[in-house]
């Protein structure tokens, strides 16, 4: 179901949450908690087609179209820090419309000082996952416009 908050509103909430975190241990504790809270992906979705190309930590991303034209994203990872990061990314993009996803800019990761997690050497699948979300949005958009 459509998320009442916009992509940029959710990003701002995350940025505000991080402002209260004093040092890196608090930051990572928070991310780890988010990872623990993220419901594990149903086993039926942990299939090769949903695997995001990463190197060290494995990310799965499952998407489906809601009846109202928004996209639901479900994700999981075998590493807890990666899982916390993808929990935030999923929160930002899930149940948003393809058009909104495509025109959005993902800025919160940098603003909360975690841009190193997007670097290719981290090979955690996060950058690939964000790319994939946009690709899905584009695919769903053309599917919707063809109906």
């Amino acid at each position: 179901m459509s998320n009442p908050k916009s992509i940029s509103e959710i990003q701002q909430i995350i940025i505000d949450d991080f402002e209260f975190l004093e040092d890196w241990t608090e930051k990572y504790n928070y991310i780890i908690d988010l990872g623990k809270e993220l419901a594990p992906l149903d086993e039926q979705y942990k299939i090769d087609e949903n695997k995001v190309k990463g190197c060290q930590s494995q990310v799965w991303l499952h998407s489906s179209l809601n009846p109202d034209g928004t996209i639901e994203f479900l994700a999981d990872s075998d590493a807890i820090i990666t899982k916390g990061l993808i929990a935030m990314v999923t929160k930002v993009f899930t149940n948003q419309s393809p058009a909104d996803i495509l025109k959005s800019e993902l800025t919160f990761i940098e603003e909360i000082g975690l841009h190193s997690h997007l670097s290719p050497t981290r090979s955690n699948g996060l950058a690939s996952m964000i790319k994939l979300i946009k690709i899905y949005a584009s695919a769903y958009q053309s599917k919707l416009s063809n109906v």
Partner: protein
Amino acid sequence: MNKEEIRADFPILQRKVNGKPLVYLDNAASSQKPLVVIDTISNYYKHNYSNIHRGVHTLSQEGTEMYENVRKKTASFINAVSQNEIIFTKGTTDAFNLLAHSYSRSFLKKGDKVLISTMEHHANIVPWQIAAEIYGIELVECPIHTDGTLDTNAYDKLLETGINLVSITYVSNTLGTINPIKELIAKANAKNIHFIVDAAQASPHMILDVQDLGCDFLTFSAHKMLGPTGVGILWGKSELLNQMQPYQGGGDMIDKVTIAKTTYNDIPHKFEAGTPNIADVIGFGAALDYLLELGMDNIAAEEHALLTYASTQLKTIPNLKIYNESSQKAPVISFNVGEIHPYDIGVLLDQFGIAIRTGHHCTQPLMDFYSIPGTCRASFAFYNTTSEIDYFVESLIKTIAILS
């Protein structure tokens, strides 16, 4: 060993990472560089640089002499019979690609078998798979035991099955296991089977003597032994290298070229097409001098002490599993803690300023053998200290607490 003096030779060891003094425990991936190596490269570009081998002018002659001197030094470092048996490559991986193509083309035919092991680095697997597609050769895997050692009984049996070439690592990059390489070579020699030794993880830590080992080829990389990146060494017996076809064509490797046909230069130049990596080879010479001045025996003793110290401490951490617990191994400790993903440990240790490696370490078949996605790997060099190990263990305990 005067640690303070030694550490002062390595400028990068003075830097901070994430606000903490760098603790560099990723030496098996690549070692840091002493100032003398950095300066040698810089000085060569400042004072001696030009292209080598063909120029009659002074700079070219100076450069050629410096470059060829390193070949001599390298030959003596591994006790090769002749400096002409030393081929400079881009690295160990490049050396294996050269062998997989040139050796296969010259000595192997369809259906011939190359024996490797489960613990090989991808550099000693993938080039052979490519060669398998081109030349129709087959790869045979020698299994290992769960303690991380080679299954030598299986090796003996496999040698009876018509193996044509053996290519096995001296030291496992992931586990630190030191294979009984001399024994393995002797058994292959007895059956007239050529033997390639991957010495990438051995060369930084021990004395290498190719005549004593009795192997036919040996490969290693400069960057793991204080030298620059982009330089590797392929040593081969000259009678074999002479029979092998070149891997790449171009400048430097030719004798006479006409559009219809080219005759090739003699070894080692036959295998060094194009302008070589002159400056970095010369830098590698300075690295060899540095290692020899410290003494490989002293380095080995120091690193073994660090390995023992770290192992003893790590073993006190609950649920920490070390892959290959033997104390007779290279200064490499691969471990996992309970169900914690190695990636998470690596990310948090980085926050403490500690560099370890996490993942599959380019040994996916070995990870499959243990059914794990990867390990955490701490690897030591003589410039590491016991207080760094204390800090590493202390930070690891904090990391585990955060992740539990």
